């Protein structure tokens, strides 16, 4: 075997070992500025790849960024906050470069509570904000006003600390166990996760009931009324796994994926923190309001697709024919999406088999060589943001082939020296 190929295969085996045998566990909730290494007060984390020019930022993300600055008490108006971004007084950084992830239009600022996801086997730690619940007017969907500020403050002062205390008292919650218990219940665990969120609620409520805080019932009510809570927990868990996986040189496996509304990008283990980006395609499928059109949507915006790097979402499409239907696809399309992902993956999770897929598991470890060689690119699921704020729809998108080609070109330049 070619010596380079031998090194690649060995590195990829290591990454697949990490992806398959890690144990993502929700261990805590802490303010981002206290727990995320390298986080500074005058800093915000945003989804997707970095911006070369802040003027490229779409309006909905601009609202989340500026709102977060006001939330931190660094500015008192949106205009003043925007000025701080333009002058660089407040730095904006891609969350995934800090082992964190921002779903949809989420921005993470220093005082915001983040879910801490630890891989208890290889030791990696990752972070994600807490899902804000069913209220569509939230920072996660690019809104900021007095109501949103009130919610953010409650999350910072009450909800986040309460969840952290409950999770610590349990010694953590293993995410793989939740996925295994709910396999075959119709979740693809990126855009649809009522089963896994319910399982998470069942695990956490006894610990929440033990809390000696005045607002205990409000905390339980908020957590129990959210069938998407598991998404953000799994995002933190995935980032923990990827902290270890991304540090394996010579590996061609994909380790970062996300969009900032303007650009969509990927990273690979063997090429470090370099992003390979293209103009962000739109997530198309179902619009939530018949009077809206595709023109109302921002390009791919969000990091929640990091769960797909772990094999969920579009790569697990066969697990959720109901969601695929929403994206305009059929049962056969659901099967094909998973089969395409299998074609370009190096591993398969066996702990959560899907009965109607012959009890197969879900694919994990997308190899950029395989994507380029076969000319098959996997399908990602997602929710789409409106340019002016709010969720516009939900659907799917083919992960752009050019990101893989750019990655492979850079990888080759690196190994060639």
């Amino acid at each position: 075997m070619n010596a380079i190929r031998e090194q690649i295969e060995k590195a990829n085996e290591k990454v697949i070992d990490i992806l398959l045998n890690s144990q993502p566990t929700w261990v805590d909730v802490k303010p981002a500025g206290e727990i995320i290494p390298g986080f500074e007060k005058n800093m915000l984390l945003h989804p997707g790849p970095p911006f070369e020019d802040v003027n490229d930022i779409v309006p909905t993300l601009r609202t989340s960024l500026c709102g977060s600055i006001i939330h931190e008490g660094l500015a008192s108006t949106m205009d003043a906050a925007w000025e701080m971004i333009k002058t660089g007084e407040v730095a904006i950084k891609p969350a995934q470069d800090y082992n964190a992830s921002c779903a949809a239009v989420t921005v993470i600022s220093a005082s915001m509570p983040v879910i801490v996801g630890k891989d208890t086997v290889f030791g990696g730690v990752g972070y994600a904000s807490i899902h804000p619940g069913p209220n569509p007017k939230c920072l996660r969907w690019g809104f900021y006003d007095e109501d949103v500020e009130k919610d953010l403050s409650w999350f910072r002062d009450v909800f986040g600390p309460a969840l952290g205390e409950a999770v610590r008292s349990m010694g953590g919650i293993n995410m793989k166990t939740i996925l295994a218990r709910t396999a075959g219940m119709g979740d693809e665990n990126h855009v649809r996760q009522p089963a896994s969120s319910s399982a998470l609620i069942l695990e956490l409520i006894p610990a929440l009931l033990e809390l000696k805080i005045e607002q205990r019932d409000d905390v339980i009510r908020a957590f129990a009324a959210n069938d998407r809570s598991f998404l953000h927990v799994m995002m933190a868990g995935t980032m923990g796994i990827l902290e270890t996986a991304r540090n394996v040189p010579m590996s061609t496996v994909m380790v970062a994926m996300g969009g900032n509304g303007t650009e969509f990008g990927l990273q690979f283990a063997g090429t470090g923190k370099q992003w390979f980006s293209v103009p962000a395609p739109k997530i198309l499928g179902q619009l939530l309001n018949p009077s809206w059109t595709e023109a109302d949507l921002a390009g791919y915006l969000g990091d929640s697709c990091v769960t797909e790097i772990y094999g969920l979402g579009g790569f697990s499409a066969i697990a959720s024919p109901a969601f695929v239907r929403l994206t305009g696809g059929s049962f056969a399309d659901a099967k094909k999406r998973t089969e395409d992902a299998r074609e370009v993956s190096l591993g398969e999770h066996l702990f959560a088999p899907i009965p109607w897929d012959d009890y197969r598991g879900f694919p994990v470890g997308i190899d950029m060589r395989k994507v380029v060689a076969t000319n098959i690119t996997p399908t990602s699921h997602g929710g789409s943001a409106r340019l002016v704020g709010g969720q516009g729809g939900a659907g799917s998108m083919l992960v752009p082939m050019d990101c893989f080609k750019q990655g492979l070109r850079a990888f080759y330049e690196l190994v060639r020296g």
Partner: protein
Amino acid sequence: MQNKIDELFKSELVVVNIGPKMFGDAVRKQGAEVIQVDWKPLAGGDKEMIAILEALGGI
């Protein structure tokens, strides 16, 4: 030699179709047996990518 060629043309036709299925389907519709080989060019025919994949030892 000529006999062998005559023999070939008189024998039952078995076609091996490589790549686009529609060519094989057209022959099958005319009653011949077709063996389909699923094949497509490496990297969609992108020569730069083919060269890189080969330099990395193939896949």
